[in-house]
């Protein structure tokens, strides 16, 4: 039995997917930063000169969420190829 989806449903699913992409990436980045943040605060308390390098390390996982966002943007705005499949 073929699953029939109209354009509206498909677009809705795409939106959910886009949301998940950014949201889950955000959680991942947060989990990554948690440990780094704690360690950096520890180091900076001992040696304030490490603030810059600490920030650098802390901001590394931030890219993850941007990847998620990039996927979301592709899902939302590269909509045309999908619409071509759906429309009869």
């Amino acid at each position, binding site marked *: 039995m073929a699953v029939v989806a109209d354009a509206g449903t498909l677009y809705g699913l795409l939106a959910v997917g886009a949301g998940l992409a950014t949201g889950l990436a955000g959680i991942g980045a947060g989990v990554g930063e948690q440990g780094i943040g704690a360690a950096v605060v520890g180091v900076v308390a001992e040696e304030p000169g490490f*603030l*810059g*390098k600490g*920030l*650098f390390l802390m*901001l*590394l996982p*931030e*890219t993850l969420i*941007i*990847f998620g*966002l*990039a996927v979301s*943007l592709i899902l939302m*705005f590269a909509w045309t190829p999908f619409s071509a499949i759906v429309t009869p």
Partner: protein
Amino acid sequence: MLKPVKMSRVVVAGSKDVISPVVEKLHELRLLHIVNYNGSQPQFEMGKPIGKAKEYSEDLIKLRSVTRYLDLNKKTPDKTFSESQILSDMGNLINNVGDDVTATYERITAIDAEVKSKQDQVKALTPLAVLPLPLEAYYGYDSLATFVGTAASAVDADVARVSPVNEIYTGSAKNATFVAVFVPAEKASEVSAVLSEHGFSETSVPRLEGNVDSAIAALEGGIKSLDGEKAPLQKKLVDIKKQYEDEMLATDEYLSMQTQKTEAPLRFAETDNAFVIDGYVPADQFSRLKNELESAAGGKLEVQMIVDKEAEALAEKGEDIPSQMDNPSLVRPYELITRLFAIPEYKEFDPSLLIFIFFPIMFGMILGDIGYGVMTMLVLIMLKKKFRTPGWQQLINVVMIGSVWSIIFGFFYGEIFGPLGLWGRMMGHLPEHEIELAKEAGLYFGEGVFGALGRMGPLGIFPMDRLATNAVLLLIGTSIFIGVIHCSVGSIFGIKTELNYGSKKHAYFERLPVMLFQVFFAIALLGLVMGQSILTYLGIIVVVASVVMLVMGPEGPMSLAHTPSYVSNLISYLRLLAIGLASVGLAYAANQLAFYVIMPMLSGGATDSAEFSMLGIIAGIVILVAVHFINFLLGILSPFMHPLRLHYVEMFTKFYSAHGGGVEYSPFGHVRRFLKA
């Protein structure tokens, strides 16, 4: 500008007779970055302090303890003092005023301790008020054991069981029964065991006399009079602080300078009759240093510059050449961001100028709102007066230049406190049918206009509503474009840095391919988007070529592992769009909530702003202020942090601090703040 100041390696050698005037002169000049003598050569030994080093440091320690009692902190000077004035007042300041402060402070500490003990006594006495005994009845017995405290349940019967001879007083306190049990001393341990079964916990009774209430009253009177004594003492300290603050800090400065001078020879190499100082001086200041020192020493001294080759050999042996960043005053605040990461090494580039160019544009591109920009500016002008330390001033200047850019971008985006809000009211909108036409044609970039000028730019894209689909796509492209430029500049500096260090292989097979990879990857993407397959093929060919170059490079096939990160570097620049969208979204939500939900709802469904009720308008304004305030706070933080990351992670890794950072040029001497020159 892009390089640290050129330094010359110098050696100062002179007769020991003139060591004092030479040190004095060096301190005054503040030019020579001294390289500490490490005692490695047998014919030289380390120098010894000259003059009254011990006296100065003793005075300094005493003064520091006094300033600590007075809670003096570093501050900007209100007035300055001449050295002779400090010298003549120092005895009085350290001995008379200092002793006075110490005595007063110690008395305050003693009062605090006494008040504390009296308060503890009052606390112990308060529950005793429920028992009918005078205080002297609780102590002073030879043959009686006394138990005073709280118990969970009545103890009379059980105590009587183990000790028929007893005297028990019971009173009910707030949450428990308060008991005083008197039994013969020989029964003490048994009674104690019985009492503990009743959850007894003992209170220590202060050794006072008379009625409990009057004892408490006496103690409280005592506390009051002690507090009365303390207040004028504290006021005295405040007065002393007010009167002597600047002078004390000036004296501190004077003594620090003196100890610095007297202890300077510890960093020199010495023989019986001569001393040698190694150090660095900015190249253009060498002749000044030479002339000044030689005239101060009256011919008993020789200052020599070491030729570059020898200096290089020293540097290779591990001697750090100090670097001093050299930037025009507009760029100087951005040295803060550089310094936060690392001091540039002597042969490296100083990235402050690059940060000055890119950072504010990125900040502006993210924040991009006239309203927030002006608000940031106003807040910063206020802070600038308040926080006067150099670090804060630099930070404030950094953000201030960013906020100018955010006002400029605000015009491009057509945003004053969010899109479609105040902008439309001040500058006007496109008519409804033109919006429809633009949407139809896929050229809708927003509905605002620049007043009578209408929409501007190619295809009329400005003012651009950042939330419109076309604008998002355009900004994605712009972000990546900025990323490519930013990374390429980084790579170019990387190539030059490697060449400065003399490693051609790293320059041409590690830095160059990265740049080619990123630029042509972007070109390939552009070709895909624009449907120009020539660009795509060209891009792919060069990308493959650059990967081959990487493999041929110093890291070999391992460098393939890095290639995904070159793509992710570029994608990372999407944050320039993303963070901005988040803040626009919040501002937009605030405006919608206030103007289209709260205000009409509280006005009985009126949609025309003229019909809004007073309540609706007030509630709407409260919402607007609250949400915009939160957005504004976030709006300063993230546009600062994210460009910072783009510099630190994406750009600096290409050329900066690969050799572990340098040493800051800190010449021997002291910046006078409280002392007149």
